[in-house]
């Protein structure tokens, strides 16, 4: 545990960026996004719309290149990149914990874990939850509990820094010049800040896990499916959604691509012969919710929803994603 004075954050990141690519929330034309950081002003107020999951599961990635020579193929894989992600939030970290269990189950996904192992995660706890956030209602957050190398909590004049892994401890040990001793009051301050954050979340959103499960049970999926505009946005912004498809681009040489997919498209579940076990959009929506709240918990022991609220922000059909009520 240590205290990082506010003004030392950027110099620390600058130093670390000599050794690895630092990814942090920055502004692009005013829009907060996770992107490579090279000294731009940090945008730490809001969690970006796109979670940093794409650094482990890119929307499109080359798994390998295939090269044909005299009838036989050879394969080239790109080397992984050392990376530090700064500013990941507890919800997205929790989602990574879910993904670790999914991609870590047999057979382990090599491409995912190559990136996972070469990435240092520096999290930022949420003092000011967004208007759609409800992680606390799902039993965790707005502070980190797992999968983190370092976690920062903004307190008066700086950050309380807590390590969660050997990689995190190493950063503290290798760069002692940046950090100050902590005191009991820093910890108390953290608890107070996060307590307030929890209260803020509870006061504006009345959402609970039993409530959501009840809504899923009662929902009129056919009616909801009729208004869904098939944009797939809820799956594309979800930090837990991880479905992909494989595509070979190029003949005779080319690339095997892994591309993000979405279960809300009919082609996702359509069989080669044309039959589709999830025939209507309502079926597909229901499956998405059941996956989050039933199937993933069964497989991993963790909920498939982390309460980030992103799906409510992007729904093109203006649905209430949590009450699942049909407006009219």
């Amino acid at each position, binding site marked *: 545990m240590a205290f990082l004075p506010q003004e030392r954050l950027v110099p620390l990141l600058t130093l670390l960026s000599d050794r690895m690519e630092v*990814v942090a929330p920055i502004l*692009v*034309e*005013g*829009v907060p*996004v*996770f*992107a*490579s950081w090279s000294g731009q002003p940090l945008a730490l107020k809001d969690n970006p*719309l*796109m979670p940093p999951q*794409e*650094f482990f599961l*890119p*929307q*499109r*990635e080359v798994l390998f290149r295939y090269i044909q020579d005299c009838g036989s193929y050879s394969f080239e894989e790109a080397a992984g990149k050392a990376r530090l992600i700064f500013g990941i939030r507890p919800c997205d970290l929790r989602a990574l914990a879910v993904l670790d269990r999914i991609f870590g189950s047999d057979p382990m996904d090599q491409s995912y874990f190559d990136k996972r192992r070469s990435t240092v995660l520096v999290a930022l706890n949420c003092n000011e939850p967004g208007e759609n956030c409800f992680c606390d209602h799902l039993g965790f957050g707005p502070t980190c509990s797992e999968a983190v190398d370092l976690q920062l909590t903004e307190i008066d004049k700086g950050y309380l820094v807590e390590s969660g892994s050997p990689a995190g401890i190493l950063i503290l040990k290798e760069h002692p010049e940046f950090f100050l001793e902590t005191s009991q009051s820093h910890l108390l301050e953290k608890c107070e800040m996060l307590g307030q954050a929890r209260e803020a979340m509870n006061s504006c959103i009345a959402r609970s896990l039993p409530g959501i499960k009840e809504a899923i049970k009662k929902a009129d999926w056919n009616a909801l499916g*009729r*208004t869904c*505009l*098939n*944009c*797939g*946005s809820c799956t*594309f*912004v979800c930090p837990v959604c991880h479905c992909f*498809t494989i*595509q070979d*681009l*190029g003949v005779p040489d*080319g690339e095997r*691509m892994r*591309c*993000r*997919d*979405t279960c809300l*498209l*009919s*082609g996702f579940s359509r069989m080669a012969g*044309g039959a589709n076990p999830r025939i209507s959009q309502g079926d597909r929506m229901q499956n998405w919710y059941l996956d989050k709240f039933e199937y993933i918990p069964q497989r991993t022991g963790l909920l498939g929803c982390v309460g980030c609220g992103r799906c409510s*922000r*992007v*729904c*093109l*059909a*203006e649905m209430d994603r949590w009450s699942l009520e049909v*407006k*009219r």
Partner: protein
Amino acid sequence: MEKVHTTCIYCGCGCGLLLHVEDGRVVGASPSPLHPMSLGRLCIKGWLAGEFVDHPDRLRYPLIRRGDRLSRVTWEEALSLTAASLRAIAQELGPNSLGVLTSAKGTNEENYLLMKLARAGLKTNNVDHVARLCHAPTVAGLSYAFGSGAMTNPIASLAQATAILVVGSNTTEQHPLVASYILEARGKGARLVVADPRKTQLAGLADLRLAPRPGTDIAWINALLNVIIQENLIDQEFIDARTEGFDAVRQTVLGSTPEAAERISGIPAHDLAEAARIFGSAERAAVVYAAGITQHTTGTDNVQALANLVLATGNIGREGTGLYPLREHQNVQGACDMGALPDLYCGYQKVAQARQKFEQAWQTKLPDEPGLTALEMLALAEDGRLKGLFIVGENPMMSYPDSSQIKKALEALEFLVVCDIFPTETSELADVVLPAASFAEKEGTFTSTERRIQRIRRAVKAPGEARAEWEIISDLLHRMGVPADYASAAEIMEEIASLTPQYGGVHYDRLGACGLQWPCPSRDHPGTGILHAEKFSIGRARFRAVEHREPVEAADDEYPLILTTGRSLYHSHTGTMTRRTSLLDREVPLPAVEINPEDARLLGIRNGQPVMVETRRGSISLEARVTEDTPKGSIFVPFHFSEAPANVLTSQALDPVSKIPEFKVSAARIRRS
């Protein structure tokens, strides 16, 4: 990983998006939460907009036809051949034996330069683009009625409407962001009336659905006006103060009773009366329309009929009201604004009136003879009177009506240059093929259907030797003896701003994530959301009486069905980009003709069965999809698929005013194959 803020390449909504770039490649896309219209949302095509950019099929090098093959050459060879061939044709047969088809997928800067190339370089007004095939009647009709052929309000204004009439627009599939605002209004209690022969998703959610027989829109729209007048739901104060010509319209619609309209359109009279009451009594009513209104031989009159409806009820110039033509391409509005039209310079300045101004600005003599529209050019090509054609980012072989006729015309050309990002059915016929940079590889601006001028930004390098079209055209302008020393797209915009009153205040440094809505006449002007709020640019808005005319083709014994063509949510136009996007192509991989179960039963056609669709122009083979969504007596074919190109079937019957072909009505027959 870098992220670059840009604008979506697909429909006219013009959503803001970020391209994700890693190691010089586009690896993803995501919505821009700050965009004033899309607000951090995208449709499925937008989410996948970056995928085609590094597809291996991209055109990488200039090609020249040698015998029956296209061979790789240098830019110098390709451009000097282009310039020399075009010049030779002009010398032999005069400049009007040349033509230019620009691209609604290109930027404003590129459309402006192409318009300049045609007029100042080639000395012809023969310049046109795909707006001719989708919204030419809007430009003609609304310019006459309101003085401006553009959407009257921002898209977001729809959320404030208390009644919305959607006509000939499959909004949830073709303009999903517009549909989102319609659903928002509906969620807040707005009444929704959807008129479409097909039962679209939005029709399924409507308070009232009207299913007219294709090609009968004026009849039933006049009937709405008839009821509105009879029941005194008109806004007399507005009509008196701000319009002219209402009496003639009143006279004309007197006979258009709902009962008379029912006989023509097949819509029950009581539904028409109810629709009229919903629209007429709403505090804020809006009309949304798309190609279902325009792609008729009565296209311009159809648009006027809607304008009459809006004017008579005073639903214009206020939040939540207005007329919303939905443009199909992301920059079809901009291509029109830039004067890629045979009779207009940029800013809708008439060739006949503004020629001197442009001669002065460009320091050259300009042609005064009126130019030809797209299909007129191709008709002359077939006759051998138009010999050279420069096509940029268009695929007439797939998108223009009556493909076999189009093919004859293109083959009859002495010299055809095609500039595109992928090989297309049209580039296969070209003498020179020029590889262009895609939207992710260049700078420029697009103007969305809500008149929002927005930047696209270079995210990655173009593949091979492909170049931005504005650079290619500048080079050609040089070779034609017209100075064109543009160092950047921003510089071209400076020239556009100096010559286009509506764009007068548009400069790159002002275009952040939000863009600017024209008219924006000066640097300190904030742009204009709602048009016609205080006054119409022509003084008073004009009513014009329009009457029903039957489509050119009617169903008969030989061809008993009416064919309409259109699009799918998952594809854009001729599929050049979307069919190279894995999830989109997987979602709708094959063409299918939609047919009503009753018709299918009579013809012994089952779902999924291979069938042949025929019209007087030709035939295509594809699968049948039996669905209640298509009305009895009609069939529907999307035009994205080269395996079964729908435009083999369509006709070149034109609207006399706007010269748009009648894509939406062809007599057809269908049989098992």
